């Protein structure tokens, strides 16, 4: 019936001892028993709400706790805290320590390090503890809300400014719904609004006349435009002539170059006279051609360019 009794009891006892020992070591480790700790002194005006064991958190993670809160000889507050070495690397010389007392839940000291490149906080240093307690602000807040409510009450009373303003607004909107609309509302009455409306009517006639004048000016401008810039207009023709002039000048230049070459040939080679005379004949026709072209060009220019006194175009 009691098979392996000793084995079972041995297993039980060993399991219990091992677990108890493991738990003890784990708790000691978690409490930082095997770890060096950084000690801090926090300076505060009052120790209210601060108790030993209160956690110090960095970015919401607990990294240490308050170890003792005492009064010193001079009646000042001495708050001592410990931070684990692994947590201490987030503490910088410019870190700020804030006592955070939420309305619900436990109070804690929040540490924030704005600049992680600043030098590390040394051991046993004293830092300032800032206290922000929302519960202390509530009475002030209530006082201010009371004032605001009193003001609102004053403004909205029976014979108050707000009622007067609303009555005025009512009169104005009533006038606005009259014959002359918004104008009547602004000017006060129908009589006042009428001259304005009349002058607006006069203005209408005036603008009609102005429209006519501007139409005429428009037509004039259109004509000028057509004469000057149309497809067969003055401007387009002169542009074409210039292109032709350029082409002819290029031709002339080419011919002169050939003359140059031929003259060289004539001077250097007298043997082949037959060839030379043939070349000369060709040159002559070339030059003739060029001169004719130049002549044509000059004629063209004379025809198109309004230099001559007998221009057959008239302004409109």
């Amino acid at each position, binding site marked *: 019936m*009691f098979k392996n*009794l*000793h084995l*079972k*009891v041995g297993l*039980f*006892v060993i*399991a*219990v001892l091992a*677990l*108890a020992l493991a*738990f*003890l070591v*784990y*708790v000691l*480790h*978690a*409490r*930082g028993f095997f770890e060096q700790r950084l000690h801090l002194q926090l300076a505060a005006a009052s120790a209210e709400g601060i108790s030993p*064991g209160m*956690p110090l958190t960095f970015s919401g*993670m*607990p990294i240490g*706790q308050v170890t003792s809160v005492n009064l010193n000889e001079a009646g000042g507050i001495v708050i001592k805290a410990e931070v684990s070495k692994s947590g201490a690397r987030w503490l910088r010389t410019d870190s700020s320590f804030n006592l955070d007392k939420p309305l*619900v*839940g*436990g109070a804690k000291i929040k540490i924030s390090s704005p600049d992680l490149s600043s030098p590390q906080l040394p051991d046993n240093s004293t830092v300032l503890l800032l206290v922000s307690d929302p519960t202390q602000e509530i009475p002030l807040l209530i006082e201010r809300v009371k004032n605001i409510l009193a003001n609102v009450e004053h403004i909205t009373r029976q014979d108050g400014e707000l009622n007067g303003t609303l009555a005025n607004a009512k009169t104005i909107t009533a006038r606005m719904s009259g014959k002359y609309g918004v104008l009547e509302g602004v000017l006060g009455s129908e009589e006042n609004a009428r001259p304005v409306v009349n002058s607006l009517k006069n203005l209408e006639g005036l603008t009609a006349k102005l429209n006519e004048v501007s139409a005429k000016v428009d037509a004039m401008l259109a004509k000028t435009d057509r004469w000057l810039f149309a497809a067969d207009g003055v401007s387009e023709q002169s542009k074409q002539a210039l292109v032709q002039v350029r082409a002819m000048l290029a031709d002339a230049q080419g011919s002169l170059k050939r003359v140059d070459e031929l003259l060289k040939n004539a001077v250097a080679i007298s043997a082949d006279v037959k060839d030379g005379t043939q070349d000369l004949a060709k040159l002559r026709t070339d030059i003739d051609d060029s001169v004719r072209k130049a002549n044509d060009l000059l004629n063209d220019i004379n025809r198109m360019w309004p230099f001559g006194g007998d221009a057959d175009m008239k302004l409109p």
Partner: protein
Amino acid sequence: MEFLLNFVERTGAKAVGWWGATFGVLAFLAEVLSTLARPATWNRATLDTIVKQIYFTAVQILHVYLIYVLAISWVIITITLSTARNVGLFDAAAEMIIRVLLLELLPFLTALLIALRSGSAINTEVALMKVNNELDALSHCKVEPMQFEFLPRIAGGVVSVIGLTVLGSVLTLLLAYLAIYGLSATGLSAFSTTISSVFSLPVLFGLAVKCIFFGLAVTTLPMAAGLETPKKLFMVPVSVLRGMMRVFLALVLIEVLSLALKYI
């Protein structure tokens, strides 16, 4: 006048009775301790009996105990977490679970379980032995009842309460971690911080002392009650009733005292 006198007399009788019982228990405890301190006690036979007692008290009910811890821990963890979430105190839930379950509820429930199962059995056994003159016979045969009957049961009880509480606590911690953080190692450091903030060394020491006292209470008190039994068979149930009542009062007293020491 007669009535008042009677009342005072009855109160006096009760007080004397209580004092007698308390004295009996204390004397018995002193005898146990002196037996413990005697080197002659620690022989192979005693150790064998102690091992048997541990087996009967703890190992035999281990699986039942673990299922029972699993159920009660799971229910309490779930309720605590959902309530904490509703009132916006989820951060404090882990600490609350550890404090309520590990420090108070589990040791108390373990002690109650052992008192119900083993304490009552011990009480009946000792009372019957007393009624049947077996104890005298044993003494006559040079088999010290204190060494071979009482001490092993007490040692077994203390070891069982401590052992079962440790196993149940580890199970509850695992359950709490799983309930809060799920199957991931992300919450390990936060959970460690919570555990470390709850289990300071004085708290751990206090917990161990409390478990030892629980173990002593659930074995010593039934034994003392059994030894007090008049040599009449019909007095055995009365003896068990008295013994178990005392065990219950003692457990509550130890729990209240430990809480008072911790928080006041």
